[in-house]
């Protein structure tokens, strides 16, 4: 341990040698007892530590601890939150929406007239303009005649 290393450690870890890395403590304590400069360095950092310790924050409120414990005991160990009940309800709503959309598409496909020239000729222009042009009806009413 030399002066520079001691100063570097104090600059990083502060003025409390008990918080310094274990491997450095014995050398630091020996240097501290033998060097007035080491004592001055430590005093500077102890003042900063004291300042930092002025910053206090509130303790946890009792109801927070109760809420967290209630949440914990209501959920089986290791149960991912993806499987939490409220997520299931969202999943159900999403599923219902998807099913509704699928049913709508199916209705259009089933309700659509067969791709026969005689019938499609009546509606040919309508199909050609629709977004379901891939039903296989061309502008002229012939199957597969579309682009």
């Amino acid at each position: 341990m030399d002066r520079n290393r001691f100063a570097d450690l104090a600059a990083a870890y502060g003025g409390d040698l008990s918080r310094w890395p274990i491997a450095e403590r014995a050398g630091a304590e020996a240097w501290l007892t033998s060097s007035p400069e080491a004592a001055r360095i430590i005093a500077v950092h102890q003042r900063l530590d004291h300042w930092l310790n002025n910053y206090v924050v509130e303790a946890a409120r009792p109801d927070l601890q109760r809420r967290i414990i209630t949440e914990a005991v209501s959920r089986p160990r290791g149960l991912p939150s993806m499987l939490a009940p409220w997520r299931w309800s969202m999943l159900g709503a999403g599923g219902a929406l998807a099913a509704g959309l699928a049913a709508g598409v199916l209705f259009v496909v089933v309700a659509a007239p067969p791709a026969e020239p005689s019938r499609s000729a009546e509606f040919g222009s309508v199909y050609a303009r629709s977004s379901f042009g891939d039903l296989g009806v061309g502008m002229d009413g012939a199957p597969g005649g579309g682009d």
Partner: protein
Amino acid sequence: VHALVSQKLPRILTLALRMLGDVAESEDVAQEAFLRIWRRAGDWRGDGGARFDTWLHTVVLNLCRDRLRRRGREKPFAETPERADETPGAEARVQADQASSLVRAALAELPERQREAIMLYHYQELSNQDAATALEVSVEALESLLSRARRTLRARLHGMA
């Protein structure tokens, strides 16, 4: 569950409070951190208390970082209203509040990584190795972050004093 919550909650909450400066947000972070503990409970490999504590600090740090980014600013501390207090011992409390506010403001001005290093090493009292692990840096890099942070804090706080 009771033992774990009562043992870890104060540490989690104080870290979140110092990072975010907002009680409601800090409580949300604490709750979310414990949700993650329960989520991992089934497959958690006990590697010793120190590693669990380090992992927990990493979780809380990440949750706080997410919230700070969502706020769109890196300054972590919400303003606290001035309060008039005329009860016995009020003057000492006012002085303590003022000192606390000065430190909080000085910390808020630090770059994010330096502030996190101070939070973990000084306030959370993690070892240098655990603080470095939580920040995903080497011990040497942690020392550099701490040194720069403390140099800045010393200049600001001694100036204010």
